[in-house]
Protein backbone atom coordinates (compact mmCIF):
# COMPACT_ATOMS: atom_id res chain seq x y z
CA UNK A 1 0.00 0.00 0.00
CA UNK A 2 1.18 3.48 -0.86
CA UNK A 3 2.11 5.54 2.21
CA UNK A 4 0.14 8.73 2.23
CA UNK A 5 1.83 11.81 3.65
CA UNK A 6 0.31 14.25 6.10
CA UNK A 7 1.73 17.60 7.09
CA UNK A 8 0.79 18.18 10.71
CA UNK A 9 1.09 21.30 12.82
CA UNK A 10 -0.43 23.93 15.06
CA UNK A 11 -1.03 27.15 13.19
CA UNK A 12 -0.29 30.75 14.10
CA UNK A 13 1.15 31.80 17.43
CA UNK A 14 -0.41 28.79 19.10
CA UNK A 15 1.83 26.74 21.42
CA UNK A 16 -0.56 23.99 22.49
CA UNK A 17 1.73 21.02 22.03
CA UNK A 18 0.00 18.12 23.76
CA UNK A 19 -2.66 17.33 21.19
CA UNK A 20 -0.09 17.70 18.43
CA UNK A 21 2.13 15.04 19.97
CA UNK A 22 -0.82 12.68 20.29
CA UNK A 23 -1.96 13.29 16.72
CA UNK A 24 1.53 12.52 15.42
CA UNK A 25 1.48 9.27 17.33
CA UNK A 26 -2.03 8.33 16.21
CA UNK A 27 -1.59 9.17 12.51
CA UNK A 28 1.75 7.37 12.40
CA UNK A 29 0.24 4.31 14.06
CA UNK A 30 -2.56 4.41 11.49
CA UNK A 31 -0.01 3.97 8.73
CA UNK A 32 0.50 7.51 7.49
CA UNK A 33 3.79 9.26 6.92
CA UNK A 34 3.58 12.24 9.25
CA UNK A 35 5.61 15.38 8.75
CA UNK A 36 5.11 17.13 12.08
CA UNK A 37 5.96 20.81 12.06
CA UNK A 38 5.04 21.16 15.75
CA UNK A 39 3.54 24.34 17.14
CA UNK A 40 3.67 27.94 15.91
CA UNK A 41 3.56 27.11 12.25
CA UNK A 42 2.85 29.80 9.65
CA UNK A 43 0.77 29.27 6.50
CA UNK A 44 3.96 29.55 4.45
CA UNK A 45 5.65 26.83 6.45
CA UNK A 46 2.68 24.52 5.98
CA UNK A 47 2.73 25.10 2.22
CA UNK A 48 6.48 24.73 1.87
CA UNK A 49 6.45 21.48 3.78
CA UNK A 50 3.52 20.17 1.75
CA UNK A 51 5.25 20.90 -1.54
CA UNK A 52 8.55 19.50 -0.37
CA UNK A 53 7.04 16.23 0.82
CA UNK A 54 4.36 16.00 -1.86
CA UNK A 55 1.85 15.71 0.94
CA UNK A 56 -1.70 14.48 0.48
CA UNK A 57 -3.23 16.48 3.29
CA UNK A 58 -2.57 19.21 5.82
CA UNK A 59 -3.76 18.43 9.31
CA UNK A 60 -4.00 21.77 11.00
CA UNK A 61 -4.68 22.38 14.68
CA UNK A 62 -5.71 25.60 16.29
CA UNK A 63 -6.50 25.55 19.95
CA UNK A 64 -5.92 29.03 21.27
CA UNK A 65 -8.83 30.87 19.68
CA UNK A 66 -7.21 32.75 16.83
CA UNK A 67 -7.90 30.00 14.32
CA UNK A 68 -10.24 32.17 12.32
CA UNK A 69 -7.65 34.93 11.93
CA UNK A 70 -4.80 32.49 11.30
CA UNK A 71 -6.48 30.25 8.72
CA UNK A 72 -7.87 32.88 6.40
CA UNK A 73 -6.51 32.75 2.87
CA UNK A 74 -4.75 29.41 3.25
CA UNK A 75 -6.65 27.71 0.43
CA UNK A 76 -5.91 30.64 -1.84
CA UNK A 77 -2.21 30.41 -1.09
CA UNK A 78 -2.28 26.68 -1.75
CA UNK A 79 -3.80 27.33 -5.16
CA UNK A 80 -1.15 29.94 -5.89
CA UNK A 81 1.52 27.49 -4.84
CA UNK A 82 0.16 24.89 -7.23
CA UNK A 83 -1.22 22.52 -4.59
CA UNK A 84 -4.79 23.72 -4.80
CA UNK A 85 -6.19 20.22 -4.50
CA UNK A 86 -4.54 19.26 -1.24
CA UNK A 87 -6.90 18.11 1.49
CA UNK A 88 -7.20 20.68 4.27
CA UNK A 89 -8.35 19.39 7.65
CA UNK A 90 -8.60 21.62 10.66
CA UNK A 91 -9.53 20.91 14.27
CA UNK A 92 -9.27 22.09 17.85
CA UNK A 93 -10.86 25.09 19.56
CA UNK A 94 -11.15 27.05 16.36
CA UNK A 95 -12.68 30.29 17.51
CA UNK A 96 -12.66 32.39 20.64
CA UNK A 97 -15.30 31.23 23.09
CA UNK A 98 -17.87 28.47 23.22
CA UNK A 99 -19.55 28.72 19.83
CA UNK A 100 -22.15 26.76 17.92
CA UNK A 101 -20.15 24.24 15.93
CA UNK A 102 -22.47 24.49 12.93
CA UNK A 103 -21.52 28.14 12.50
CA UNK A 104 -17.84 27.45 12.94
CA UNK A 105 -18.00 24.64 10.41
CA UNK A 106 -19.74 26.81 7.86
CA UNK A 107 -17.18 29.58 8.33
CA UNK A 108 -14.24 27.24 7.77
CA UNK A 109 -15.98 25.44 4.90
CA UNK A 110 -16.33 28.80 3.23
CA UNK A 111 -12.60 29.31 3.77
CA UNK A 112 -11.92 26.18 1.74
CA UNK A 113 -11.36 23.54 4.40
CA UNK A 114 -12.47 20.00 3.59
CA UNK A 115 -13.05 18.76 7.11
CA UNK A 116 -13.59 20.72 10.27
CA UNK A 117 -13.59 19.16 13.74
CA UNK A 118 -15.04 20.39 17.01
CA UNK A 119 -13.05 20.46 20.30
CA UNK A 120 -12.08 17.08 21.62
CA UNK A 121 -12.42 15.16 18.36
CA UNK A 122 -10.68 11.79 18.65
CA UNK A 123 -7.86 11.10 16.14
CA UNK A 124 -9.79 8.00 15.01
CA UNK A 125 -12.52 10.19 13.55
CA UNK A 126 -10.04 12.01 11.34
CA UNK A 127 -8.36 8.76 10.37
CA UNK A 128 -11.66 7.35 9.20
CA UNK A 129 -12.40 10.49 7.20
CA UNK A 130 -8.90 10.53 5.72
CA UNK A 131 -9.30 6.98 4.49
CA UNK A 132 -12.58 7.91 2.91
CA UNK A 133 -11.28 11.08 1.29
CA UNK A 134 -8.17 9.30 0.02
CA UNK A 135 -10.23 6.42 -1.34
CA UNK A 136 -8.77 3.91 1.10
CA UNK A 137 -12.01 2.51 2.44
CA UNK A 138 -12.25 -1.24 2.32
Amino acid at each position, binding site marked *: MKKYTLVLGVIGMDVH*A*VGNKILEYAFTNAGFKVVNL*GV*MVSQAEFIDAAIETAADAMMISSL*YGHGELDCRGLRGKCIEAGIGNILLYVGG*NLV*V*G*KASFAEVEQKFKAMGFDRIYPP*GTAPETAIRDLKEDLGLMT
Partner: protein
Amino acid sequence: MAELQNQRIETEEFFDMRREVLEAWPTGAEVNLDEAVAYQKSIPPPKRFSGVLDSALAAGGTLIQPRAGVALVEQQIALLKYLEEKGGADLLPATVDSYTRQNQYREAGKGIEESFAAGRSMLNGFPIVNHGVNESRRVIEAVSIPVQVRHGTPDARLLAEISIAAGFTAFEGGGISYNIPYAKDISLEATINYWQYVDRLTGWYEEQGVTINREPFGPLTGTLVPPCISHAVAIIETLLAAEQGARNISVGYGQCGNLIQDVAALKALNILAREYLERYNYQVALSTVFHQWMGGFPADEAKAFAVIAWGAAAAAFAKATKVIVKTPHEAFGVPTKEANGDGLKATRQILNMLRDQVLPESDEIDAEVAVNLAETRSILEKVVELGEGDWAKGAVRAFAAGILDIPFAPSRVNRGKVMPVRDDKGAVRFLDNGNIPLPRDVLEYHREKVAARAKTERRPVSFQMVIDDIYAISKGMLVGRPG
Protein backbone atom coordinates in the same frame (compact mmCIF):
# COMPACT_ATOMS: atom_id res chain seq x y z
CA MET B 1 24.23 41.42 25.41
CA ALA B 2 26.61 40.73 28.27
CA GLU B 3 27.15 37.19 29.43
CA LEU B 4 24.12 35.88 31.30
CA GLN B 5 24.57 35.78 35.02
CA ASN B 6 22.38 35.95 38.09
CA GLN B 7 23.35 39.41 39.18
CA ARG B 8 21.48 42.59 39.74
CA ILE B 9 21.48 44.71 36.58
CA GLU B 10 23.32 47.99 37.14
CA THR B 11 21.02 50.97 37.21
CA GLU B 12 22.71 52.71 34.32
CA GLU B 13 22.71 49.63 32.13
CA PHE B 14 19.08 49.08 33.02
CA PHE B 15 18.09 52.57 31.96
CA ASP B 16 19.95 52.11 28.70
CA MET B 17 17.99 48.97 28.03
CA ARG B 18 14.76 50.69 28.89
CA ARG B 19 15.10 53.25 26.15
CA GLU B 20 15.31 50.55 23.53
CA VAL B 21 12.46 48.54 25.01
CA LEU B 22 10.10 51.48 25.11
CA GLU B 23 10.73 52.26 21.47
CA ALA B 24 9.40 48.91 20.29
CA TRP B 25 5.85 50.24 20.03
CA PRO B 26 4.41 53.75 20.14
CA THR B 27 2.60 53.23 23.44
CA GLY B 28 6.00 52.82 25.09
CA ALA B 29 6.20 56.60 25.03
CA GLU B 30 3.32 56.77 27.51
CA VAL B 31 5.53 55.39 30.26
CA ASN B 32 6.83 58.10 32.55
CA LEU B 33 8.48 56.51 35.55
CA ASP B 34 8.05 59.35 38.03
CA GLU B 35 4.43 59.77 37.15
CA ALA B 36 4.00 55.98 37.25
CA VAL B 37 5.42 55.75 40.76
CA ALA B 38 3.09 58.50 41.90
CA TYR B 39 0.16 56.72 40.25
CA GLN B 40 1.11 53.40 41.82
CA LYS B 41 1.43 55.11 45.21
CA SER B 42 -2.08 56.47 44.86
CA ILE B 43 -3.39 52.87 44.79
CA PRO B 44 -4.35 51.92 48.35
CA PRO B 45 -3.41 48.55 49.94
CA PRO B 46 -6.84 46.90 49.42
CA LYS B 47 -6.36 47.47 45.70
CA ARG B 48 -2.76 46.25 45.72
CA PHE B 49 -1.81 42.64 45.25
CA SER B 50 0.74 42.74 48.03
CA GLY B 51 -1.79 44.25 50.43
CA VAL B 52 -4.46 41.66 49.79
CA LEU B 53 -1.98 38.77 49.87
CA ASP B 54 -0.59 40.03 53.18
CA SER B 55 -4.06 40.11 54.71
CA ALA B 56 -4.80 36.64 53.43
CA LEU B 57 -1.56 35.26 54.85
CA ALA B 58 -2.46 36.79 58.19
CA ALA B 59 -6.06 35.60 58.16
CA GLY B 60 -5.28 32.14 56.80
CA GLY B 61 -7.94 31.84 54.12
CA THR B 62 -7.54 31.13 50.41
CA LEU B 63 -8.20 33.90 47.88
CA ILE B 64 -9.82 33.28 44.51
CA GLN B 65 -8.74 34.64 41.15
CA PRO B 66 -10.08 33.94 37.67
CA ARG B 67 -8.39 34.23 34.27
CA ALA B 68 -10.05 36.75 31.98
CA GLY B 69 -9.15 38.78 28.97
CA VAL B 70 -10.99 40.23 25.98
CA ALA B 71 -9.93 42.51 23.16
CA LEU B 72 -11.51 45.85 24.07
CA VAL B 73 -11.21 48.12 27.12
CA GLU B 74 -14.93 48.52 27.67
CA GLN B 75 -15.46 44.77 27.38
CA GLN B 76 -12.58 44.14 29.76
CA ILE B 77 -14.08 46.54 32.28
CA ALA B 78 -17.50 44.93 32.05
CA LEU B 79 -15.89 41.52 32.41
CA LEU B 80 -13.83 42.39 35.47
CA LYS B 81 -16.66 44.25 37.16
CA TYR B 82 -18.85 41.22 36.69
CA LEU B 83 -16.20 38.89 38.10
CA GLU B 84 -15.72 41.15 41.10
CA GLU B 85 -19.35 41.88 41.83
CA LYS B 86 -21.19 38.79 40.67
CA GLY B 87 -18.39 36.24 40.79
CA GLY B 88 -17.04 37.43 44.11
CA ALA B 89 -13.39 37.32 43.00
CA ASP B 90 -10.79 38.51 45.52
CA LEU B 91 -8.18 39.21 42.88
CA LEU B 92 -8.61 40.04 39.21
CA PRO B 93 -6.57 39.35 36.09
CA ALA B 94 -5.97 40.84 32.74
CA THR B 95 -5.12 37.78 30.68
CA VAL B 96 -3.17 38.96 27.66
CA ASP B 97 -3.86 37.77 24.09
CA SER B 98 -1.52 35.47 22.19
CA TYR B 99 -0.34 38.02 19.63
CA THR B 100 0.87 40.38 22.32
CA ARG B 101 2.55 37.42 23.99
CA GLN B 102 4.62 37.01 20.87
CA ASN B 103 5.21 40.77 20.56
CA GLN B 104 3.11 40.86 17.41
CA TYR B 105 1.48 44.16 18.22
CA ARG B 106 0.44 44.71 14.63
CA GLU B 107 -1.56 41.46 14.64
CA ALA B 108 -3.01 42.39 18.01
CA GLY B 109 -4.03 45.75 16.53
CA LYS B 110 -5.83 43.95 13.72
CA GLY B 111 -7.55 41.79 16.30
CA ILE B 112 -8.75 44.90 18.11
CA GLU B 113 -10.18 46.32 14.90
CA GLU B 114 -11.86 43.07 13.95
CA SER B 115 -13.31 42.81 17.42
CA PHE B 116 -14.84 46.26 17.05
CA ALA B 117 -16.24 45.23 13.70
CA ALA B 118 -17.48 41.80 14.76
CA GLY B 119 -18.98 43.04 18.02
CA ARG B 120 -17.30 40.21 19.87
CA SER B 121 -13.75 39.58 21.00
CA MET B 122 -11.65 38.10 18.23
CA LEU B 123 -8.63 38.00 20.52
CA ASN B 124 -8.08 35.46 23.25
CA GLY B 125 -6.99 38.11 25.72
CA PHE B 126 -6.52 41.78 26.55
CA PRO B 127 -3.80 43.45 24.41
CA ILE B 128 -2.28 45.73 27.03
CA VAL B 129 0.59 47.05 24.93
CA ASN B 130 -1.71 48.19 22.15
CA HIS B 131 -4.10 49.83 24.58
CA GLY B 132 -1.23 51.54 26.35
CA VAL B 133 -0.87 53.10 29.78
CA ASN B 134 -3.77 55.51 29.83
CA GLU B 135 -6.40 53.25 28.34
CA SER B 136 -5.34 50.37 30.59
CA ARG B 137 -5.66 52.56 33.67
CA ARG B 138 -9.39 52.79 32.98
CA VAL B 139 -9.54 49.10 33.74
CA ILE B 140 -7.71 49.42 37.04
CA GLU B 141 -9.88 52.35 38.04
CA ALA B 142 -13.14 50.63 37.23
CA VAL B 143 -12.70 47.93 39.85
CA SER B 144 -12.01 48.00 43.55
CA ILE B 145 -9.73 44.99 43.97
CA PRO B 146 -6.19 44.32 42.68
CA VAL B 147 -5.52 43.33 39.09
CA GLN B 148 -2.65 41.15 37.89
CA VAL B 149 -1.29 40.75 34.40
CA ARG B 150 -1.34 37.08 33.41
CA HIS B 151 0.09 36.08 30.09
CA GLY B 152 2.80 33.74 28.76
CA THR B 153 5.12 36.20 27.08
CA PRO B 154 8.74 35.18 26.53
CA ASP B 155 9.83 38.79 26.07
CA ALA B 156 7.56 40.74 28.39
CA ARG B 157 9.72 43.78 28.91
CA LEU B 158 7.51 46.30 27.18
CA LEU B 159 4.42 44.59 28.53
CA ALA B 160 5.80 44.92 32.06
CA GLU B 161 6.72 48.56 31.58
CA ILE B 162 3.26 49.47 30.35
CA SER B 163 1.46 47.24 32.84
CA ILE B 164 3.15 48.55 35.94
CA ALA B 165 2.89 52.15 34.76
CA ALA B 166 -0.80 51.48 34.15
CA GLY B 167 -1.33 50.47 37.76
CA PHE B 168 -1.36 46.69 37.64
CA THR B 169 0.15 45.57 40.93
CA ALA B 170 1.17 42.04 40.03
CA PHE B 171 2.91 40.50 37.04
CA GLU B 172 3.03 36.80 36.26
CA GLY B 173 5.78 34.90 34.51
CA GLY B 174 9.45 34.13 34.41
CA GLY B 175 12.33 33.43 32.09
CA ILE B 176 11.78 29.68 32.14
CA SER B 177 8.08 29.28 32.83
CA TYR B 178 7.13 31.73 30.09
CA ASN B 179 9.53 30.29 27.62
CA ILE B 180 9.54 26.50 27.62
CA PRO B 181 5.74 25.99 27.68
CA TYR B 182 4.98 29.12 25.62
CA ALA B 183 7.58 29.27 22.85
CA LYS B 184 9.25 27.15 20.24
CA ASP B 185 12.47 28.77 19.22
CA ILE B 186 13.68 31.29 21.76
CA SER B 187 16.85 30.65 23.72
CA LEU B 188 16.75 30.48 27.49
CA GLU B 189 19.63 32.94 27.68
CA ALA B 190 17.40 35.45 25.96
CA THR B 191 14.27 34.91 28.02
CA ILE B 192 16.06 34.76 31.35
CA ASN B 193 17.69 38.00 30.38
CA TYR B 194 14.32 39.55 29.42
CA TRP B 195 12.90 38.49 32.73
CA GLN B 196 15.85 39.83 34.67
CA TYR B 197 14.77 43.10 33.12
CA VAL B 198 11.21 42.63 34.33
CA ASP B 199 12.44 41.73 37.78
CA ARG B 200 14.85 44.63 37.80
CA LEU B 201 11.95 46.91 36.90
CA THR B 202 10.02 45.40 39.79
CA GLY B 203 13.02 45.94 42.02
CA TRP B 204 13.31 49.52 40.88
CA TYR B 205 9.68 50.20 41.80
CA GLU B 206 10.34 48.46 45.10
CA GLU B 207 13.18 50.91 45.76
CA GLN B 208 10.70 53.72 45.20
CA GLY B 209 8.40 52.18 47.78
CA VAL B 210 6.07 50.49 45.32
CA THR B 211 5.61 46.75 45.81
CA ILE B 212 4.71 44.75 42.73
CA ASN B 213 3.89 41.08 43.23
CA ARG B 214 5.74 38.66 40.98
CA GLU B 215 4.51 35.16 40.26
CA PRO B 216 6.51 32.51 38.39
CA PHE B 217 4.03 30.49 36.32
CA GLY B 218 3.71 27.27 38.27
CA PRO B 219 1.83 24.79 36.07
CA LEU B 220 4.18 24.96 33.05
CA THR B 221 2.51 22.75 30.40
CA GLY B 222 -0.32 21.93 32.78
CA THR B 223 -0.18 18.31 31.75
CA LEU B 224 1.09 15.66 34.17
CA VAL B 225 4.06 17.76 35.31
CA PRO B 226 5.73 15.97 38.26
CA PRO B 227 5.81 18.42 41.20
CA CYS B 228 9.60 18.38 41.54
CA ILE B 229 9.99 19.78 38.03
CA SER B 230 7.63 22.69 38.50
CA HIS B 231 9.00 23.32 41.99
CA ALA B 232 12.55 23.50 40.67
CA VAL B 233 11.54 26.02 38.01
CA ALA B 234 9.48 28.09 40.46
CA ILE B 235 12.35 28.29 42.91
CA ILE B 236 14.96 29.18 40.31
CA GLU B 237 12.72 31.97 39.04
CA THR B 238 12.10 33.11 42.59
CA LEU B 239 15.83 33.38 43.22
CA LEU B 240 16.39 35.21 39.93
CA ALA B 241 13.59 37.65 40.75
CA ALA B 242 14.80 38.21 44.30
CA GLU B 243 18.30 38.97 43.04
CA GLN B 244 16.88 41.78 40.90
CA GLY B 245 15.06 43.19 43.88
CA ALA B 246 11.59 41.66 43.78
CA ARG B 247 10.30 41.44 47.33
CA ASN B 248 6.82 40.00 46.97
CA ILE B 249 6.66 36.63 45.27
CA SER B 250 4.00 33.96 44.85
CA VAL B 251 5.13 30.47 43.94
CA GLY B 252 2.63 28.35 42.08
CA TYR B 253 1.73 24.75 41.48
CA GLY B 254 -0.75 23.09 39.14
CA GLN B 255 -3.05 20.46 40.64
CA CYS B 256 -2.15 16.89 39.73
CA GLY B 257 -5.38 15.42 41.11
CA ASN B 258 -4.28 13.06 43.85
CA LEU B 259 -5.12 14.86 47.08
CA ILE B 260 -2.18 13.59 49.08
CA GLN B 261 0.29 14.45 46.37
CA ASP B 262 -1.22 17.89 45.91
CA VAL B 263 -1.28 18.78 49.58
CA ALA B 264 2.24 17.44 50.06
CA ALA B 265 3.51 19.25 46.99
CA LEU B 266 2.29 22.65 48.11
CA LYS B 267 3.72 22.06 51.55
CA ALA B 268 7.09 21.08 50.08
CA LEU B 269 7.08 24.04 47.69
CA ASN B 270 6.52 26.42 50.56
CA ILE B 271 9.32 24.87 52.62
CA LEU B 272 11.75 24.81 49.72
CA ALA B 273 11.13 28.32 48.49
CA ARG B 274 11.75 29.68 51.98
CA GLU B 275 14.81 27.50 52.40
CA TYR B 276 16.46 28.72 49.20
CA LEU B 277 15.51 32.35 49.79
CA GLU B 278 17.09 32.09 53.19
CA ARG B 279 20.25 30.58 51.81
CA TYR B 280 20.86 33.83 49.96
CA ASN B 281 19.36 36.05 52.61
CA TYR B 282 16.73 37.47 50.31
CA GLN B 283 13.97 39.22 52.24
CA VAL B 284 10.84 38.19 50.37
CA ALA B 285 7.18 38.07 51.37
CA LEU B 286 6.26 34.62 50.03
CA SER B 287 2.82 33.30 49.21
CA THR B 288 1.56 30.24 47.36
CA VAL B 289 -0.72 29.69 44.38
CA PHE B 290 -2.71 26.58 43.61
CA HIS B 291 -3.97 26.16 40.05
CA GLN B 292 -7.07 24.06 39.56
CA TRP B 293 -6.41 21.25 37.06
CA MET B 294 -4.60 22.77 34.08
CA GLY B 295 -4.84 19.91 31.61
CA GLY B 296 -7.66 18.89 29.32
CA PHE B 297 -11.13 19.36 30.82
CA PRO B 298 -14.35 17.39 30.33
CA ALA B 299 -16.63 18.97 27.74
CA ASP B 300 -19.70 18.37 29.89
CA GLU B 301 -20.25 21.39 32.14
CA ALA B 302 -21.53 19.42 35.12
CA LYS B 303 -18.38 17.33 35.00
CA ALA B 304 -16.27 20.44 34.60
CA PHE B 305 -17.89 21.82 37.76
CA ALA B 306 -16.79 18.67 39.56
CA VAL B 307 -13.20 19.12 38.39
CA ILE B 308 -13.32 22.74 39.54
CA ALA B 309 -14.76 21.78 42.92
CA TRP B 310 -12.15 19.10 43.43
CA GLY B 311 -9.44 21.63 42.65
CA ALA B 312 -10.96 24.00 45.17
CA ALA B 313 -11.02 21.28 47.82
CA ALA B 314 -7.36 20.45 47.22
CA ALA B 315 -6.47 24.15 47.40
CA ALA B 316 -8.31 24.47 50.69
CA PHE B 317 -6.61 21.46 52.24
CA ALA B 318 -3.25 22.62 50.85
CA LYS B 319 -3.87 26.02 52.47
CA ALA B 320 -2.81 27.90 49.37
CA THR B 321 -2.79 31.68 49.62
CA LYS B 322 -4.76 31.88 46.40
CA VAL B 323 -6.34 29.55 43.92
CA ILE B 324 -6.59 30.18 40.19
CA VAL B 325 -10.01 29.15 39.05
CA LYS B 326 -11.14 27.32 35.92
CA THR B 327 -14.55 27.58 34.32
CA PRO B 328 -17.21 25.16 33.07
CA HIS B 329 -16.38 26.31 29.52
CA GLU B 330 -12.75 25.24 29.80
CA ALA B 331 -12.89 22.48 27.21
CA PHE B 332 -14.51 24.75 24.65
CA GLY B 333 -13.09 28.21 24.64
CA VAL B 334 -12.53 31.48 26.38
CA PRO B 335 -15.44 31.55 28.83
CA THR B 336 -18.32 33.98 28.92
CA LYS B 337 -18.33 36.17 31.99
CA GLU B 338 -21.18 34.09 33.39
CA ALA B 339 -19.26 30.84 33.03
CA ASN B 340 -16.23 32.49 34.56
CA GLY B 341 -18.34 33.73 37.47
CA ASP B 342 -19.77 30.24 37.92
CA GLY B 343 -16.28 28.81 38.34
CA LEU B 344 -15.59 31.41 40.99
CA LYS B 345 -18.82 30.79 42.86
CA ALA B 346 -18.38 27.03 42.93
CA THR B 347 -14.84 27.51 44.16
CA ARG B 348 -15.89 29.94 46.84
CA GLN B 349 -18.56 27.58 48.12
CA ILE B 350 -16.00 24.80 48.55
CA LEU B 351 -13.39 27.05 50.12
CA ASN B 352 -15.94 28.38 52.57
CA MET B 353 -17.23 24.94 53.51
CA LEU B 354 -13.66 23.72 54.03
CA ARG B 355 -12.12 26.78 55.55
CA ASP B 356 -12.34 25.44 59.08
CA GLN B 357 -11.48 21.87 58.17
CA VAL B 358 -8.01 20.38 58.13
CA LEU B 359 -6.68 17.28 56.49
CA PRO B 360 -5.30 15.25 59.39
CA GLU B 361 -1.57 14.68 59.50
CA SER B 362 -0.57 11.25 58.33
CA ASP B 363 2.39 9.10 57.37
CA GLU B 364 1.25 9.13 53.76
CA ILE B 365 1.48 12.90 53.50
CA ASP B 366 4.74 13.03 55.41
CA ALA B 367 6.26 10.44 53.09
CA GLU B 368 5.13 12.32 50.04
CA VAL B 369 6.52 15.60 51.37
CA ALA B 370 9.84 13.92 52.09
CA VAL B 371 10.08 12.50 48.58
CA ASN B 372 9.11 15.80 47.05
CA LEU B 373 11.72 17.67 49.10
CA ALA B 374 14.44 15.18 48.24
CA GLU B 375 13.80 15.12 44.50
CA THR B 376 13.47 18.89 44.18
CA ARG B 377 16.64 19.52 46.18
CA SER B 378 18.46 16.97 44.09
CA ILE B 379 17.51 18.82 40.90
CA LEU B 380 18.23 22.27 42.31
CA GLU B 381 21.61 21.33 43.68
CA LYS B 382 22.60 19.90 40.31
CA VAL B 383 21.42 23.09 38.61
CA VAL B 384 23.48 25.37 40.82
CA GLU B 385 26.43 23.04 40.50
CA LEU B 386 26.21 23.20 36.71
CA GLY B 387 25.99 26.96 36.97
CA GLU B 388 29.08 27.03 39.17
CA GLY B 389 27.04 28.78 41.80
CA ASP B 390 25.07 30.89 39.31
CA TRP B 391 21.38 30.05 38.99
CA ALA B 392 20.94 31.74 35.63
CA LYS B 393 23.81 29.91 34.02
CA GLY B 394 22.78 26.75 35.82
CA ALA B 395 19.27 26.92 34.44
CA VAL B 396 20.47 27.28 30.86
CA ARG B 397 22.94 24.44 31.21
CA ALA B 398 20.46 22.26 33.06
CA PHE B 399 17.97 22.47 30.21
CA ALA B 400 20.68 21.75 27.69
CA ALA B 401 21.67 18.68 29.68
CA GLY B 402 18.10 17.56 30.34
CA ILE B 403 18.64 18.02 34.08
CA LEU B 404 15.62 20.24 33.79
CA ASP B 405 13.08 18.87 31.34
CA ILE B 406 9.40 19.73 31.09
CA PRO B 407 6.97 17.12 29.76
CA PHE B 408 5.07 17.98 26.57
CA ALA B 409 6.72 21.36 26.18
CA PRO B 410 6.87 22.86 22.67
CA SER B 411 10.27 24.51 23.07
CA ARG B 412 13.28 23.18 21.19
CA VAL B 413 15.38 24.21 24.17
CA ASN B 414 13.68 21.46 26.11
CA ARG B 415 15.11 17.95 25.78
CA GLY B 416 11.71 16.30 26.04
CA LYS B 417 13.09 13.02 27.33
CA VAL B 418 11.05 12.98 30.49
CA MET B 419 7.80 11.04 30.43
CA PRO B 420 5.35 11.25 33.34
CA VAL B 421 2.60 8.78 34.15
CA ARG B 422 0.05 8.36 36.91
CA ASP B 423 0.50 5.72 39.57
CA ASP B 424 -2.18 3.40 40.90
CA LYS B 425 -3.65 6.15 43.09
CA GLY B 426 -3.43 8.84 40.47
CA ALA B 427 -0.31 10.61 41.69
CA VAL B 428 1.97 11.81 38.90
CA ARG B 429 5.24 9.86 38.76
CA PHE B 430 8.09 9.37 36.31
CA LEU B 431 7.71 6.72 33.68
CA ASP B 432 11.06 7.93 32.37
CA ASN B 433 13.02 10.55 34.27
CA GLY B 434 15.32 11.17 31.32
CA ASN B 435 18.35 12.98 32.68
CA ILE B 436 16.63 14.44 35.69
CA PRO B 437 18.82 13.62 38.65
CA LEU B 438 16.88 11.82 41.35
CA PRO B 439 18.20 10.09 44.46
CA ARG B 440 18.22 6.32 44.02
CA ASP B 441 15.56 5.71 46.67
CA VAL B 442 13.29 8.31 45.10
CA LEU B 443 13.67 6.68 41.73
CA GLU B 444 12.86 3.37 43.33
CA TYR B 445 9.76 4.94 44.93
CA HIS B 446 8.56 6.14 41.54
CA ARG B 447 9.28 2.78 39.94
CA GLU B 448 7.37 0.86 42.57
CA LYS B 449 4.39 3.16 42.36
CA VAL B 450 4.21 2.87 38.60
CA ALA B 451 4.74 -0.88 38.73
CA ALA B 452 1.79 -1.21 41.11
CA ARG B 453 -0.41 0.44 38.53
CA ALA B 454 0.86 -1.76 35.73
CA LYS B 455 0.02 -4.74 37.88
CA THR B 456 -3.51 -3.53 38.60
CA GLU B 457 -4.09 -2.89 34.92
CA ARG B 458 -2.38 -6.08 33.80
CA ARG B 459 -0.51 -4.25 31.08
CA PRO B 460 3.06 -3.07 30.72
CA VAL B 461 3.98 0.54 31.37
CA SER B 462 4.01 2.23 27.98
CA PHE B 463 3.32 5.44 26.10
CA GLN B 464 -0.26 4.25 25.69
CA MET B 465 -0.64 4.61 29.45
CA VAL B 466 0.55 8.20 29.19
CA ILE B 467 -1.91 8.96 26.40
CA ASP B 468 -4.68 7.41 28.45
CA ASP B 469 -3.66 9.63 31.36
CA ILE B 470 -3.65 12.75 29.20
CA TYR B 471 -7.23 12.09 28.21
CA ALA B 472 -8.36 10.69 31.56
CA ILE B 473 -9.82 13.74 33.32
CA SER B 474 -11.52 14.95 30.17
CA LYS B 475 -13.08 11.50 29.92
CA GLY B 476 -14.25 11.56 33.50
CA MET B 477 -11.43 9.66 35.24
CA LEU B 478 -8.18 10.49 37.01
CA VAL B 479 -6.14 7.43 36.07
CA GLY B 480 -6.36 6.40 32.41
CA ARG B 481 -7.25 2.75 32.89
CA PRO B 482 -7.72 0.53 29.85
CA GLY B 483 -11.13 -0.64 28.63
